[in-house]
């Protein structure tokens, strides 16, 4: 009886795994099948208004890139504070908790917040509003990774630095950060991959436009928002373009993830 139950359990568990993988495989399959058929040079050279995706792809990268550029110093510095200066105090724990809460706050709520503080006062959607929304989403992730990575730095390294008379600043920047650099970079890469696919916070902060634009103070083209708009259109061709965009977006996210994974593996071995 026990052996039969055991057998049944193993079969059930394997079956569950198969079902889960089946769904996920199904998604990837349709994504590739629909995405690749629409892939052509036109997609990369034309703007959305002419049936391409050039402006929205560049726009999405600019928004996420700017958010990353601003997010790195803030996130890394906050992480350094938690690990190097904060010690074991209540404040440190409190800020750690806050950062975890922020990390799992619904992204649409971040969108409404930015809408209230940027879009309503300025009266229109803008690239900067999108940057701010993604920045808010991104910072807690970077804080978390920096915090975790610095925790791995052996205390002896810090002590050795201190012993030869280096200031805390020098020890942190030249020894601790250097030691943990690869890990932090991987974390930043993964954080970038996470925000580059965000749609909800951009819906009414950056909006999206069909034209080429590099002016962050006005409504800015966004790939994810465009996918949402395209996919809900009745026109077959538009939906197809939406699928192509979705395919390209997924590939981008997966490739960034793979690079991050590869980098962290190489470091370990």
């Amino acid at each position, binding site marked *: 009886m*026990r*052996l039969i139950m*055991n057998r049944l*359990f193993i079969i*059930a*568990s*394997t079956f*569950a*795994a198969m*079902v*889960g*993988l089946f769904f*996920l495989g*199904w*998604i990837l399959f*349709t*994504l590739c099948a629909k995405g690749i058929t629409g892939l052509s040079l036109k997609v990369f050279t034309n703007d959305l208004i002419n049936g391409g995706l050039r402006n929205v792809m560049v726009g999405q990268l600019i928004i996420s890139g700017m958010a990353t550029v601003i997010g790195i*110093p*803030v996130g890394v*510095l*906050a992480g350094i504070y*938690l690990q*190097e200066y*904060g010690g074991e105090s209540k404040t440190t724990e409190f800020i750690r*908790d*806050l950062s*975890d*809460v*922020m990390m*799992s*706050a*619904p*992204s*649409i*709520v*971040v969108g*409404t*917040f930015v*809408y*209230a503080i940027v879009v309503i006062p300025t009266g229109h959607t803008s690239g900067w509003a999108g940057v701010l929304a993604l920045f*808010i989403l991104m*910072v807690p992730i970077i*804080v978390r990774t920096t915090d975790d990575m610095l925790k791995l730095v052996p205390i002896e390294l810090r002590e050795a630095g201190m012993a030869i008379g280096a*200031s805390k*600043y020098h020890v942190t920047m030249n020894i601790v950060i250097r030691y943990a650099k690869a890990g932090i970079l991987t974390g930043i890469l*993964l954080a970038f991959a996470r925000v580059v*696919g965000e*749609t*909800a916070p951009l*819906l*009414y902060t950056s*909006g999206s436009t069909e034209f080429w634009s590099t002016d962050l103070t006005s409504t800015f083209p966004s790939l*994810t928002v465009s*996918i*949402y708009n395209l*996919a809900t259109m009745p026109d077959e061709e538009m939906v197809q373009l939406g699928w192509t965009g*979705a395919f390209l*977006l997924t590939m981008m*996210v*997966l490739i960034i993830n793979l690079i991050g994974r590869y980098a962290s593996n190489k470091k370990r071995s």
Partner: protein
Amino acid sequence: MERLFKKLTQMSAGLLFVILAATTIVLYLSAKPAIEQFGVNFLFESRWGVEEQQAVPARALDVENLEARSSDESFIEEDEDFIDDDEDFVTDDDFESDEGSSNIVYGALVPIVGTIFSTLIAMLFSIPIAMGIAVFLAEIAHGSIAKPIGIAIELLASIPSIIYGMWGLFYFGPFIANIFGGNTVSLLVAGLVLGVMVIPFMAALSRDAISTVPEMLKESAYAMGATKLEVIKDVVFPYAKSGIIGSVILSFGRAMGETMAVAFVIGGVYQFVGSVTDPTNSIPVVLANSFAESSGLSLSVLFYLALILFMMSFLVIAVAKHYFLRRKK
């Protein structure tokens, strides 16, 4: 330099607090007109204001469905004990005319119920499958299979949610409608798409929790003659319990606040579900669909909704952190 650097790091850390506090305060201030007007009743009110005609199809549908809705309500009692307390409220008010446009009523009950039920469906669907995957990867599968599948699962967890939404709209919705009947956009489809979305996330976290179980414990159980099932049931699960429950709660929070995967497939209709195959609405979707066209009181109402959602997710995370996810010192 030393001082400056320390100040900088302090400021960055402080910024986290400022952002979070500012979010709460700004949402509250923006929602204030609505909070003053509707108070707590907002949570139990099922009508959503029919105001000046807008190009949102959801609104138009809502008017059409007014009749249908009153008949739907008889179903609610059987289906959902959960909102029984609010039942009087709903039926009392519902027969008043919505035409009196001078007094527009907004209520959050439909989106709140929609959010909770779509999340519950997602959990019912994803927990067994994700646990199956986690156990399969950590205990059953041979290393050479488990590793690539594990990596694939982690990669899948990073796919943007909008992709799941599109897939749900074009493939999964019709598929479910074929099996269970009903619409291609519905509460059921929304819940299942959410479920599929959180499976990789939950599976990866649970697998990590399971693999923290020391080999020694498992080996001693095997040495006593225990079968795999007994080892997993009596040794692995008790040991990894808090981590696994934590992963479920985090997935719950993630599913609850998810916008894009649901926006495509829930229908966006302010209507209670008679059966699970009817379209309804959820908080994030209301926010996503009607934010751009709103102003004045209707905008304030949306901020109220956002505040409610924020509080709900805050609660979930607080519970998860407090009870299950204590960081190891």
